[in-house]
């Protein structure tokens, strides 16, 4: 009897361990060509001619949780044609067509459309740009770091309930992924937090030397500084998720269509401001859009504001110093006339007046 119980317990434990382990098993990444055969090793890499170390390890678990989990390696790394492959010299081209057909679509997926929009924007490299500008302009990977294959946080979406009805007709796996993807995109304009956006843009736009080289306008030079002075900037600095960051105003929902403000395509072009501000401010008019979103650091140039500022400062010092001074003076005078500090039952005037000896 006893041995049966022991075997039962052992089976139960084993089963439990197996269940826990199998839950933790990573989902299968799209690696049909088995690149991970080599790249799964943590120290696969080389030392180049300059003595610099390169690590080519791909963490399967991270990759299978990333946005690109369904994309086979060679869809992006197209220049690899044989195994073992030659040293890689080319960059990945995000405009490549990959062999994935999105749900509800016939054509293969590509980032080409957004890249076209981006290339037209102020950040796209133009033939007439100087060499410095060409070098300074950010490319896809500058902003989309894909660091550690940036995990998409999808657990925040309460999709189970909404999705239940879809499952009546649709296959669970495909429709769940599509649904999560869409709701994730719908939830926010960007996946980045406003703080990350401001930080990202400021990385270049706060670099005054770089900006001067690129000959940006006087207002553009101080854009980060002046934004940080506004309520928008201050609220974002303190962690707000509701306040406007850079792309809230400077880009439409396409995000990549950032233009200079004198370009009629721009969301901050003077005729488009009404519409842009209207996203958050329910009532806008031609006066409203003149309110400084990047108020000049020299706004004190306005003589009225300058006078007000000086006046308020004087009032502050005057009020505090005179009132506290009066209080101290009063205390001195009353103490001399015999008042004691502590208020008790009876009277506070317990002392002898030292003022008028009789």
């Amino acid at each position: 009897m006893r041995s049966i119980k022991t075997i039962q317990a052992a089976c139960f434990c084993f089963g439990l361990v197996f269940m826990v382990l199998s839950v933790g098993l990573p989902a299968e990444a799209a690696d049909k060509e088995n690149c991970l055969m080599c790249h799964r090793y943590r120290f696969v890499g080389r030392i180049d001619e300059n003595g610099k170390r390169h690590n080519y390890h791909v963490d399967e678990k991270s990759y299978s949780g990333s946005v690109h989990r369904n994309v086979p390696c060679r869809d992006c790394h197209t220049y690899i044609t044989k195994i073992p492959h030659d040293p890689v010299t080319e960059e990945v081209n995000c405009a490549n067509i990959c062999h994935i057909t999105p749900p509800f679509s016939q054509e293969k997926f590509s980032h080409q459309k957004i890249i076209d929009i981006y290339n037209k924007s102020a950040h796209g490299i133009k033939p007439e740009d100087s060499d410095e500008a060409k070098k300074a302009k950010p490319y896809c990977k500058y902003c989309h770091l894909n660091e550690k294959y940036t995990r998409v946080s999808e657990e925040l979406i309460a999709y189970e309930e909404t999705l239940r009805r879809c499952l009546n007709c649709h296959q669970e796996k495909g429709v769940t992924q599509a649904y999560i993807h869409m709701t994730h995109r719908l939830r926010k304009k960007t996946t980045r937090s406003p703080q990350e956006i401001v930080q990202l843009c400021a990385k270049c736009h706060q670099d005054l030397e770089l900006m001067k080289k690129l000959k940006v306008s006087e207002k553009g030079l101080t854009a980060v500084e002046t934004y940080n002075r506004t309520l928008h900037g201050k609220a974002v600095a303190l962690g707000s998720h509701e306040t406007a960051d850079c792309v809230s105003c400077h880009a439409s929902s396409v995000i990549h269509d950032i233009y200079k403000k004198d370009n009629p395509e721009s969301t901050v072009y003077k005729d488009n401001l009404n519409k842009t501000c209207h996203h958050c401010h329910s009532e806008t008019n031609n006066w409203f859009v003149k309110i400084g979103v990047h108020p000049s650091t020299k706004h004190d140039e306005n003589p009225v504001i300058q006078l007000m500022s000086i006046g308020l400062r004087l009032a502050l010092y005057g009020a505090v110093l005179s009132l506290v001074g009066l209080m101290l003076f009063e205390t001195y005078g009353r103490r001399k006339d015999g008042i004691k500090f502590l208020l008790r039952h009876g009277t506070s005037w317990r002392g002898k007046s030292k003022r008028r000896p009789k």
Partner: protein
Amino acid sequence: MSTSSKTFVVAGKEIVEDDDYITLVDGVGPIPRDIYKYVKSDPTGDLPRYSVHIVIQHLLIFVTFIVLSGTGLPLYFSDLSWAQYLITLFGGIDLAREIHKVAAFTMMFASAYHIVTIVGGTSRKLLKGEFDYRRTIIPRLKDLSDFFQDIKYFMGFAPYRPKMEKFMYKQKAHYLAILWGSFVLMAAGSALLFPDVVARLFPDTVTKILPTGIVDEVAFPSFFQSLARLMHADEAVMALIVIAFWHWLNVHLVPGRFPLQWAFLNGKITREHQLEEHFLEYLRNLQEIPEEREYMRKLLKEKGFEISQKVTVEDIPRIL
């Protein structure tokens, strides 16, 4: 004020004082100016000063003021390290902004409540014919002379503090400052909260009539917004500093008030405080409260304050 000297018998002694020293109250007796040194007081207060409405309004303003400072200051000083910690206390900036708005509307409600109380109370007194502007917070010329006499007293040049009404010069100045400050903070705060509504005050048609150059030059809404930003922040910081470094100390920490003045909780003032700083109001208290008359009559007898035979009643100034 006459400066002629007269002789009185006070506490069995004959003394020479100017005729402001003794105030004769019918049925009570001659009250010397420094009687506050001889009275007995209850630290929680003896005489009525504020109605329950004023106490409630003060508490509302008091609480909302602290909440508004706590949620507003970090925004003004957003680049300083403590701002983040303070804002976390209020559940993050987005919640803190909502709390700020709720507190602001509560404070505005308290202000409206105050106006209703003041207007209602005043009109009731007017109807009864009891209204006396000297008992109100309305500034008078006397406040200025009171101030100078008080300064003289503090310096040791004048023997006694001036006889002041229910509200002395300090309180009147503070009240006026609060009136101005609340108006500025509410107006500027509303302009910051509803920039679109403020911009609507300048209708689109005006923009269209004026040539573009002028609109850009003048930029009214931009100007008003900058002004509102400046006024709201600076005025609030000033209010906070004045409350923290003067009002609290002046009310609870100076001698004779320490450790706590109960007036903001029960609306009562101590007898010695009333006599010292609001002597004329005390005389009105004597008229209105029979118990107080009885107390003062007994005290004067006990301490031996009486009018010398050498003076006639006509020589003594009558306030009431």
